[in-house]
């Protein structure tokens, strides 16, 4: 299937007082039409920066997209003018953020905020847009939309605000929805509601989704393909079943083993841990970024950073070592 979005060798830096932060290094991934791509990784691994680059929302300066290409339906987004980009944002690609309260305007009613993108992108009047807004609020499960659209963001609960954000992102029927940690700030029962909502919307509207999270449980539930990131690099990429059942990168392995499971019926044992903590992105070492924390590391990892290579059809990893044998691949 032709991918709807393709990132090629993206590199993003930030100039800070402490030095240049290499937030995203040589990252390539693609999203298939109508499918869900899950991006997992710890904070600071570059997962949000990579999708903000897709939307061209990286503030320059201090940020800078150094190189790479982002193809959206064959068109390189990085080459578009700001004006052309405005037709993509919101209309073609919708985005949902982690903390809805920071992204909703507190002094506008939510009805007005949802209608705005319809007025801008579809050239409707506010009266026309109101009808669609009502429908959208209904679709995302907000009861009594006619009255609720006159309310302000503070009158909604966290889960409801996230639903409003989703309604805004969906307003122009985007082909791609980017969700950046949409459920991290929510309770599990509300998270379950939002995950179910996204799944049913995707089924009905046939859009592609990028879902960013650090929760491996949520990704297992809704992703078709998974990208695991560490220190600004993609370290493993495969379909969701391969990632969870046959992870080949040491980092993915560590992550899955360090998670306790709610359906765990064995007696509690110690959790596997990864010693140390992630690098800061400023000091760049010549070798593999995981090397200081990796128990499989061999001599080669010290001085050569492994590229992302395909080890089986559709399964790519960036590691020199075969973890089952402990030897170099």
């Amino acid at each position, binding site marked *: 299937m032709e991918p709807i979005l393709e990132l090629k060798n993206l590199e993003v830096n930030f100039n800070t007082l402490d030095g240049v932060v290499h937030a995203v290094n040589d990252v390539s991934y693609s999203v298939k039409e109508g499918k869900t791509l899950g991006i997992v990784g*710890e*904070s600071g691994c570059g997962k949000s920066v990579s999708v903000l680059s897709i939307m061209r929302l990286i503030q320059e300066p201090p940020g800078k997209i150094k190189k790479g290409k982002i193809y959206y339906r064959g068109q390189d987004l990085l080459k578009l003018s700001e004006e052309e980009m405005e037709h993509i944002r919101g209309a073609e690609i919708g985005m949902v953020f982690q903390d809805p309260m920071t992204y909703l305007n507190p002094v506008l009613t939510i009805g007005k905020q949802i209608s705005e993108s319809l007025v801008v992108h579809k050239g409707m009047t506010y009266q026309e847009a109101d009808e669609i807004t009502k429908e959208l609020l209904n679709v995302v499960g907000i009861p009594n939309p006619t009255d609720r659209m006159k309310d302000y963001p503070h009158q909604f*609960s*966290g*889960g*409801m605000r996230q639903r409003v954000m989703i309604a805004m992102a969906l307003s122009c029927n985007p082909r791609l929805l980017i969700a950046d940690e949409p459920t991290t700030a929510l*309770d*599990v*029962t*509300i*998270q*379950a*509601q939002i*995950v*179910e909502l996204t799944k049913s919307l995707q089924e009905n509207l046939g859009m592609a989704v990028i879902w960013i999270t*650090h*929760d*491996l*449980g*949520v*990704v*297992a*539930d809704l992703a078709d393909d998974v990208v695991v990131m560490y220190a600004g690099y993609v370290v493993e990429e495969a379909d*969701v*079943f391969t990632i*969870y059942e046959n992870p080949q990168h040491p980092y993915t392995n*560590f*992550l*899955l083993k*360090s*998670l*306790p*499971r*709610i*359906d*765990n*019926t064995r007696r*509690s044992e*110690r*959790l*596997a*841990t*990864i*010693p140390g*903590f*992630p690098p800061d992105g400023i000091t760049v070492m010549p070798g593999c970024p995981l090397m200081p924390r990796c128990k499989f590391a061999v001599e080669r990892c010290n001085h050569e950073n492994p590229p992302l290579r395909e080890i089986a059809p559709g399964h790519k990893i960036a590691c020199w070592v075969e973890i089952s044998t402990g030897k170099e691949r």
Partner: protein
Amino acid sequence: MNNQNVLLEVKGLKKYFPITKGILFQREVGAVKAVDNVSFNIYEGETLGLVGESGCGKTTTGRTILQLYKPTDGQVVFAGDNLTNKTPKEMRKLRYRMQMIFQDPMASLNPRWTISTSISEPLQVHQNLKNKEKLERVEQLLELVQLNSYYVNRYPHEFSGGQLQRIGIARALATSPDFIICDEPISALDVSIQAQIVNLLEDLQGELGLTYLFIAHDLSMVRHICDRVAVMYLGIIAELADRDDLYNDPLHPYTQALLSAVPIPDPRATRSRKRIILEGDPPSPADPPSGCRFHPRCPLATDQCKQETPEFRELKPNHWVACWEA
């Protein structure tokens, strides 16, 4: 479990925060019932998990136990002493035996103090040690939490989140307490760091014979670390049972929904699981629903649930539930 000694007994604990109106002449117009009639025991050497969604009163329960909030009603008995009628001075003498670890280690450490000052402050308050003895103790504590004692004179901003949480733990251990309330100690940390801290807490419990009240919303982690688990909903305890009993055979409909909502990091298992999706959000604790507080969202609710508050009863040995239909 019952043959063990009870370390802490909480009986009918209530904490209401007043809602006031008016600027000059404030009058009470209502109360947020953050904790409403909560009772449980904590046995020596065990870990009791306290779980629930945000705003359900977990943290308030923890703080009220330590008398950081004055309870509205009810008793807290710690090792035979009733804490609720102690004066602040008497309370201070007991505090060294109970400590707390907070969620955000950066916010709970003074940014202008070296970590040595932060860790030794409880020693200063509770034990009159000489400077040299204090420094020795700080180094010993840092070693206990697996940090290099070389770091003593550094400031909080020089550490990562996981290291700061270790420092928070070292400070809590400074006075050799018996009982520690861990208030979401891992929620602010990255996945790979969470496991390190949880293992450390377990090691310390084994070494020092600590008793924990572990407040969390991560139900998978709670299953890993706790011996018994209490589930809170809107200021009350809905269910309390031994860990495996609660996870394998939850009796309260809220517990059932909560457990079914937790995603499993295994695509086949999580996709084949039957989920109970609760509708709506938890109501406000300022105006809780009549009868059973869960009834507006409960799939099993009957007329009885709407009118009468279910009592907290022992349906199976050591398995307590507050539900008419269970």
